[in-house]
C-alpha cells in the first residue's frame, strides 16, 4: 500500500483531468461543426464546489477546438448516462460501470492514462485512527457509497462482499449514497459513516488539495486495478477520430492551467 501511495502522490486531479480531457477534445475534429456548442457531460466526480475549475476547463476546451464547449453536470451518474444514451450529449466522461451497462448504446471515445496506464483502483476508507485490519472488521458499519452507477464507489465494494457471500445490506448495518466521491470522504471523516467506498484517484488527489479533510480518513482496502472511467459518446453520433495515442498536451503548461506539464496525464487512449 505504501508503494501504491508513493506512485500516486505526484498526481493531482486537476492535472489528470485537465490534461486528459483537453487531449480528448483534440481527438474530436470530426464532430459536427455546427454553431451550437459541444455538449460534454461530466459525472459528479467533479464537485459542485469546483465551479471555477469547470469554468476554466470549459474555456480551455473551447479554445482548443475552436468551438464553444458547454460542460453539462448532473447530480448522479445515472442522469449523465441517460442524457448520453438519449443522444442529448456529444460526449461524456462517465464511469466504467454505466459504460458496460449501456455498451450497446455507447461507443468509447477515449480513456485517460493514469500513471501511464488506463487503470485505477477503488478504496474502502474508514475514519483515521480506527483500529481495523481487514474488511471483516467493517461488518455492522454505517457505510457510505458514492453512487449506484459508480464502479469504485459502489460496484467494487459490492463485488468484494459478493466474494465473501455477503451483500451491502447484510454486511453493513446501514448504507447510503452521497453522490460524490468527495462526499464519501466527508461522510467518513465527519463520522456520519463508519466507512466508505471511494475512487482511489479522487482520494489521492484530494489528499493533496484538501489534506485537512482527507487526513480524517485512512485507506482500509485497495482493490485490484480496474479500467479508468472512459469518455464515451452515443452510437450514431458524429464519427470520431481513429484510434491513436495522444501525447502529453503541449498547451497545458502554457495555457490557463497552472502546474508543471510533466505531471499532466501521461496520455490518452482515443478510439476513432
Amino acid at each position, binding site marked *: 500500500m505504501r508503494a501504491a501511495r508513493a506512485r500516486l502522490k505526484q498526481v493531482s486531479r486537476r492535472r489528470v483531468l485537465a490534461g486528459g480531457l483537453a487531449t480528448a477534445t483534440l481527438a474530436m475534429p470530426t464532430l459536427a461543426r455546427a454553431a451550437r456548442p459541444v455538449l460534454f457531460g461530466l459525472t459528479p466526480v467533479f464537485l459542485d464546489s469546483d465551479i471555477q475549475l469547470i469554468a476554466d476547463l470549459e474555456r480551455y476546451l473551447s479554445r482548443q477546438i475552436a468551438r464553444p464547449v458547454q460542460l453539462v453536470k448532473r447530480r448522479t451518474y445515472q442522469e449523465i448516462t441517460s442524457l448520453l444514451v438519449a443522444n442529448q450529449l456529444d460526449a461524456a466522461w462517465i464511469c466504467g460501470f454505466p459504460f458496460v451497462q449501456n455498451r450497446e448504446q455507447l461507443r468509447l471515445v477515449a480513456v485517460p492514462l493514469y500513471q501511464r496506464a488506463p487503470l485505477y483502483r477503488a478504496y474502502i476508507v474508514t475514519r483515521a485512527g480506527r483500529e481495523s485490519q481487514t474488511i471483516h472488521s467493517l461488518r455492522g458499519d454505517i457505510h457510505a457509497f458514492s453512487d449506484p452507477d459508480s464502479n469504485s464507489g459502489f460496484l467494487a465494494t459490492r463485488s468484494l462482499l459478493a466474494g465473501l457471500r455477503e451483500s451491502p445490506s447484510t454486511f453493513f448495518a446501514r448504507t*447510503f449514497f452521497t453522490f460524490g466521491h468527495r462526499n464519501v470522504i466527508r461522510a467518513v471523516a465527519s463520522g*456520519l459513516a463508519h466507512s466508505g467506498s471511494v475512487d482511489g484517484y479522487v482520494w489521492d488527489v484530494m489528499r493533496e488539495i484538501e489534506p485537512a479533510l482527507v487526513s480524517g480518513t485512512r485507506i482500509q482496502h485497495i482493490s485490484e486495478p480496474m479500467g479508468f472511467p472512459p469518455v464515451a459518446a452515443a452510437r450514431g453520433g458524429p464519427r470520431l477520430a481513429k484510434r491513436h495515442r495522444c501525447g502529453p498536451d503541449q498547451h497545458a503548461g502554457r495555457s490557463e492551467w497552472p502546474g508543471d506539464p510533466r505531471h499532466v496525464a501521461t496520455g490518452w487512449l482515443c478510439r476513432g
Partner: protein
Amino acid sequence: MIGVFHPQRWPLAVRAPLIVALLMIGIAAAMSKVVLDRLARDQAQSFRQLTGAYLDGLSTALHSPVIRQEPWEAFDVLDRARHKYSGVNPRIVLVILPNESVLAALDPATYPVGSIAPEKARIGRSDPDLSDPGGRVWVHRTLREGGREIGRIAAEIDIANIQRVRSDTLWTLLGVNGALTLLFAGLGWFVVHRTLRPLLRLSSYLARAGDGRLEPIPDHKLPPPDTEAGKAYRRYNAAALAISEREALLHRLADQERRALLGRYASAIAHEVNNPLGGLFNAVRMIQRHGDDPERRERAATLLERGLTGIRNIVRASLVVWRGETDDRTLTSGDIEDLRFLVESEALRRDLQLEWTNELGPHSSIAAQPFRQMALNLALNACAASPPGGRVCFSVRSDRDETVLHISDEGPGLPADCRAMLLTAASATSAQDANAGLGLWIVARIVSDQRATLSIEGPPGTALTVRIPHAQPDLRTAA
C-alpha cells in the same frame, strides 16, 4: 431618645452627601434595571429572529432529505450551514425522525445515524431562557408535509456570547454608576459643606449661647450683607446685642430692686428698733429716778435687756441677710432662724399668722446666700399677698438628697405672668416680663442656676415648693 450613632446626630455635611449618594444609587439601580430589561428583551427578540432564520433555512433545505430519509443529504445541509449563520452558534444540531431516531447530526460521531435522540433534545419550553446558567438553550422546528409531521430539527445554541454581553453591560453599568455615585457624593459633600459653612459657623455661635452668653460675630467674619448668610449673621448680631443689653438692664434693675428691698428693710429695722426705744428710754429714766429702788432697778434692767435683745436680733438678721455675695457659707439651720426675725417682723406688721417650720438637716450642702435670698423673697411675697389676719406657712426640710422649701399663703393666687416666669426656665435666663416682679425673676434665676424644680399650687391661695438637689453645681455662682 436618639442614640449617639443615630443618623440625626450625624453632621449635615455628611448626611447631605450620603443622601445624594443614596439617591444616586437608587437612580442608578433603577436605570440599570431598565437598561438590562431592555437589553434582555432585545436579545431575546434578536435570538428568536436569528434562530428562526436559521431554522427556516435548515427546514427548507432539509425538507426533501427528511422525506426521503437521506442521512447524507441531511448531514450535507447541516454541514454547509455550519458557517452560514454567524449570529447563531449551534453546538448540537439534530435532524430527528418522528420515531425519535437521529437522521443526521452536525456531530455524527456523537449522535450516529439511527441512534435515539437524547432526552435533552426533546421539545421543551417554547421561549428559551437566555439566562440559563449552562449557557446553552435548545430550539426546535417541526417539519411537516401535508399537515403531517415528517421530522424535526433540534439545535442546542451556545448563548455564551449573549450572556457575556449581558454580563459586560451589567459590570459596565455598575462601574459607571458606581463612579458617578462616588463623584456626585464627593461633589455633594463639597457643595453642601461649602454651602453650609456659614450656617455651621452661625450654629457654633448659637451653641455658645447655651452657656448664657451670645457672642457677636466679628465684622471681618461677616459675609456680604446682600447674601442670606450675611443677613442671618447680622440678625444674629442684632439679637445678641439686644439680649446683652437686656441682660445688663435686668442686672441693673435687680440691683435697684435689691437696694429698694434694702431700703424697705432698713425702714422695717428702724421701726423694729424704734419700738423698743421708748421702753428703753423709760427704763433709763426709771433707773435715773428710782435707781435706789432695787425692785424698780431690776424691772428697768429687765426691760433694757429685752429691748436690746430684740434690737440685737434684728441687727444680726439684717447683717446675715445683707452681708452680700462674699458670704459663701453652707446653709445652716441658724440661717433659717435669722430669716424668721425678718419675716416675723413683716408678718406682725401686716397682722398675719406665721407658721414657721425649720427641719433643715445636717446633710444640706447648698449655699446659704442664694437660698436665703430666694426664701426671703418668696416669704415676703407671701406676706404681701395675704390679707390681714391670713396665715403664712414657711417650712424648710431636708434629707440626704434634697432640701425642700415650702411657702404658702391665703392670698388671691399667683398671677399668670408671674407663674409663667417662675415655671419657664428659659425666661429666667433670657428675659423678664415687665409685669412680673423683679423678686420673682431673681427667684427664677436662682431656681434655674441651682437646677432646682419649682411647683406651684393654687388658687385658692398660693403654695410654692422648691426642691433643690444636693449633688448640684456650686450654688455660690447664683445671683
